[in-house]
């Protein structure tokens, strides 16, 4: 379980996160949604120790993230942020192999190779595995980074806007993959999403944030409702049930 207590973040004099306390239970897929500047990414990067907190604590299965040694946490929790640009000329396989670093400290064993193969296969990168990252499309590169996180094989997988810059087909592919990681491998997946309909169709749990605070949280049935979403994003929305999925319409206001 991920447990945050009284989490705050201050940049200079502005509070971007105000006293957020929440629990994310083990297993399943949790989405974090909310308007720009709601503090979604800040929350995710503080949970994953990338950003130091101004106040509050975060515990992963009872381990305080600021006090537990980095290599211990790296075996339990992985994080992928939005901008992953490397100046290096790495092949896909080299990159994915880095995911094994917390386990093997850079000396790859046969077991590591197995995990690498599995992650490459899982993200359907087999035919690209010996290509260099700069020869891939944006979507393929994104998948290569997700494969690295998958080969890290942690219980908790945190992703900051994994659907950014990828097309519909790959976005659906990515969400299906994360869903499978939760269902088949028992991972706890936490994603920041901008597309609320993806959040609606794939999540077990949704956390809605606004203005640096926790606004709502619950199941998709509780959150994907026109009154909740209209309030959260401050625009008129309507929610319709299509083929058993709750879809939010907000593209053009009906007069």
């Amino acid at each position, binding site marked *: 379980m991920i447990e945050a207590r009284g989490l705050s973040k201050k940049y200079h004099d502005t509070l971007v996160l105000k006293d957020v306390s929440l629990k994310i239970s083990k297993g399943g897929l949790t989405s974090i949604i909310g308007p720009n500047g709601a503090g979604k990414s800040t929350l995710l990067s503080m949970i994953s120790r990338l950003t130091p907190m101004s106040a509050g604590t975060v515990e992963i299965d009872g381990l305080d993230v600021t006090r537990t040694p*980095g290599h211990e946490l790296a075996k339990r929790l992985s994080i992928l942020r939005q901008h992953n640009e490397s100046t*290096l000329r790495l092949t896909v396989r080299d990159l994915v192999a*880095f995911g094994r670093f917390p386990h093997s400290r850079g000396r790859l064993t046969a077991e590591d190779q197995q995990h690498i193969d599995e992650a490459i296969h899982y993200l359907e990168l087999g035919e690209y595995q010996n290509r260099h990252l700069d020869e891939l499309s944006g979507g393929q590169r994104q998948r290569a980074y997700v494969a690295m996180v998958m080969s890290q094989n942690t219980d908790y997988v945190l992703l900051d806007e994994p659907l950014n810059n990828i097309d519909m087909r790959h976005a659906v592919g990515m969400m299906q993959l994360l869903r499978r990681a939760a269902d088949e491998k028992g991972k706890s997946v936490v994603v920041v999403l901008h597309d609320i309909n993806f959040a609606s169709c794939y999540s077990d749990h949704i956390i809605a944030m606004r203005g640096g605070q926790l606004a709502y949280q619950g199941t998709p049935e509780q959150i994907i409702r026109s009154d909740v979403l209209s309030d959260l994003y401050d625009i008129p929305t309507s929610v319709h049930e299509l083929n058993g999925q709750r879809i939010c319409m907000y593209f053009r206001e009906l007069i």
Partner: protein
Amino acid sequence: MGLNPRGKLLLSLTALLALLSVVGFMTLNVQSDWGFIMEYRGSRLLGMLLVAITMGLATVVFQTVTHNRILTPSLMGFDVLYVLVHSLALLVWGAEQSTNWPIELRFIVEVAAMVAIALLLFRLLFTGSVRGLHVLILLGMVGGLLFRELADLALRIFDPSEFSIQQGSGVANFNRINLKLLWIGLVGVGLCSTLLFHFRRQLDVLSLGRDVAINLGIPYIKTITLLMLAISVLISISTALVGPLLFFGLLMANLAYWLTGSHQHRWTLPASVLAGIVCLVGGQVVFEHLLSSGLPLAMVIELCGGVLFIVLLLRGVKQ
């Protein structure tokens, strides 16, 4: 993950060339007895080898830590920072009449001061809000200029005799290596290069960027601080031995990337040192014995490095 065949071939060739340079430097045109040659040429050779190791390792590691292939510790003014500390130290030593301290001890004190200042600067640069390579290059250039001017100012306050001793140290010279610091330099280089090679796998991970490195369990601040400490010590040693070298490290690091075609520090670190040995020792052999030219080697190397810097900058601008 080994090296590709091209990298293997080029690296072996470089190693062979480095060996030939060393042998050539020691044996070409020997006219006096061997005891003298061993002492005279041997000590100069050791000095140049130390410079090759310090500049190569320090530059490659610095570029990994800062995620770029243009910026080097010298461009950020680390070497002139040492000159500044050294000049200030001379003022203090002179004033307190404590010049009876052994030179090694004075050197250690200067390096300690240099490391402290460098770490402080680095903290300011990398934990603050300064992001982006261009800002960093600009700050480095300005910092370098500032240190250079301050060092000049310090020199002008000297007595005329001290000034003349100190004057030469503004420009690198491989014919006038500070042999008194050879042994302490050897110890420092030995310690730092062992440390850096021990960290080769962590360095591979660090080159992926801060966030990925933390995700993969690297204690980021601790590791970076330790690496910067080693870089500062290495640059101090190099500058104390031959004087400031602005573009030499850039040349070596980029030669190393090109030779190996690899991102792995187990290859790029040794490759940068070998490339440095070929440039320094090989260059000295060519200039002294084959061309019998009086052209200073340091200048030629700096010119090549300078051209490379402009090429890299232009390519960076295009991207």
